[in-house]
């Protein structure tokens, strides 16, 4: 995984609440055994017209949105299905961060695992960002992970929460599995003491 430190990127707005992961990527794209082709399925219902051509009215399809790496999305982004294909598709499309008043729990965890930064901001900041993008579609925001701050176009810095461990992993480009694999001794002790005797090999 590439380390994430500070980056600036063009922001695109999707001010819709409760965007579920079926909208991020419908189940028909989930029949793969790798991560290929998922970016093509991103927001497919909104991105394409019924005849398969791009929908010119959809925010991501507007010329000024080209190259955007930050998505400013409505409340409860990523609710519904646990499919990690949703953050894979967003990252595959080119997004590095999603900014929202709040995220669904599973999506938030999945995004952090793959280096797609879920940035939770207060309502005021969310609306301020939307106004900036509406006034200037070329609006860029800076995200400083080390400082846990979003720097808005006017220069205002807003802190965002992220747990220390996830932040450490993202800053250093390491994933969480390595840490888990180092816990073998404790896991063995736990297993020896557990009263549960289930065996799936009946």
């Amino acid at each position: 995984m590439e380390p994430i430190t500070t980056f600036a990127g063009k922001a695109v707005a999707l001010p819709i609440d409760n965007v579920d992961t079926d909208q991020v990527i419908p189940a028909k794209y989930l029949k793969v055994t790798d991560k290929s082709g998922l970016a093509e399925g991103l927001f497919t219902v909104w991105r394409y017209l019924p005849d398969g051509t791009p929908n010119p009215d959809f925010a991501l399809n507007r010329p000024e949105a080209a190259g955007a790496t930050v998505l400013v999305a409505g409340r409860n982004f990523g609710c519904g299905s646990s499919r990690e294909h949703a953050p894979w598709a967003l990252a595959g499309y080119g997004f590095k961060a999603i900014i929202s008043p709040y995220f669904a729990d599973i999506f938030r965890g999945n995004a952090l695992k793959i280096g797609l930064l879920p940035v939770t901001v207060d309502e005021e900041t969310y609306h301020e960002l939307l106004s900036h993008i509406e006034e200037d579609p070329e609006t860029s925001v800076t995200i400083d992970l080390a400082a846990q701050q979003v720097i808005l176009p006017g220069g205002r810095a807003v802190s965002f929460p992220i747990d220390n461990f996830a932040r450490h992993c993202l800053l250093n480009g390491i994933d969480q599995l390595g840490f888990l694999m180092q816990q073998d001794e404790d896991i063995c002790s736990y297993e020896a003491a557990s009263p549960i005797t289930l065996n799936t090999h009946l």
Partner: protein
Amino acid sequence: MPKTLFDHVWDAHIVRPETPDTPAVLYIDLHLIHEVTSPQAFTELRQRGLRVRRPDRTLATMDHSTPTTPRNALGIIPVIDPQAIAQLDQLRKNCADFGIPLFELGSANQGIVHVIGPEQGLTQPGMTIVCGDSHTSTHGAFGALAFGIGTSEVGHVLASQCLLQSRPKTCAVRIEGQLHPGVTAKDIILALIAKYGVGGGTGHVFEYMGEAMRALSMEERMTICNMSIEGGARAGMVAPDETTFAYIAGRPYAPKGADFDAAVARWRTLPSDPEAVFDKEMFLDATSLAPMITYGTNPGMGIPIDAPVPTPEQMPDAGSRQELDAALSYMKLEPGKPLLGHPIDVVFIGSCTNSRINDLRQVAHHLRGRKVADGIRVMVVPGSQQVKRQAEEEGLDTIFKAAGAEWREAGCSACLGMNADQVPPGKYAVSTSNRNFVGRQGPGARTLLASPLTAVASALTGVVTDPRTLLDQE
């Protein structure tokens, strides 16, 4: 300090406690996997040269991309979609290479992952259970801590049998009073989500409690816990009681004899302590509930079946007005108009929410000797091969077929639009599943979520129908 049910289970699974710099290492007792969310995790294991730590705590089934078409002359369920074939083959190979037991498509125990766990006795109180599927919350009905994970985490559990987790908050969901006839567990959960919204439980684990919950069967409790995720809660739990123990006793993977008695003694210590404090509370009066149905494009957009579709003026803010407008435009429904009597095209009875034997018995009871309305496609999809066998032993399949409904093989089917079972564009389906998202049941499909009772009532008339009319006829 008094503990909640969640605290009891969480605390008993801490391998390494949470520190300011690291989340807790949480041990996972049972890991269920299926063909869709596991392949990339096995790839990760192979790339790193890792083994599956506990294949004996892992079990695989095939359910999501599988067809539910009847068997061919050789008794085989034919898979036609090349992508589904590849995905199923990959699961077979992964299970064989890593020594994981697999419930093969069409075999005696295969079925929807959240139906087979409980029916096999794999799901037990006090366990931690995960699966790469958000409806893993279903297993919480047994007093297990069960939640959906992404594919990266599937890899974590395969390799270490553990997850890195920050402690979620707890929410007591009190459901008091008694349900009126015609009102079911499905209506409880749809009403709860309508009241508190699809994000209401975010960051929390629900514990359902109260008089109405105690009165429910295990199957009904599963229906409620199943849709916890639709209320934003990653997990929902019910304290185990005599109903729970009686359900588990004698199931294939359940403890036997003295081991069962010892397990029950342990399970009796799980319920929340009387003085336990929750971070948040929700409340629902079961006595005041009517059968529920959704009109929109998330599961929180639900109304009592005899109520009109909401109007923009009833919405609290501009955001929700915009959401309602978009939903009604997709659903092609008019604000302020009743849903009752609205023509429908498809009825889907199935999914991990409502495909268990009790659901099928209820549907069959009302279809017996009757015909579904002309021009309506009615799909009855058992949750597992075991449910299918049981239904056939009871002659329910004969009733379905005689009524003009389809009796299919076990699987997720039309719940999620990733196999051949789909609702055509623009068509209305009354579905017993859990999600009415745009395109969920197929591109352009218009889903009305409801109970099996409402589904069968509507199947008989061809329009959205109050299930209490069925009871009046008895």
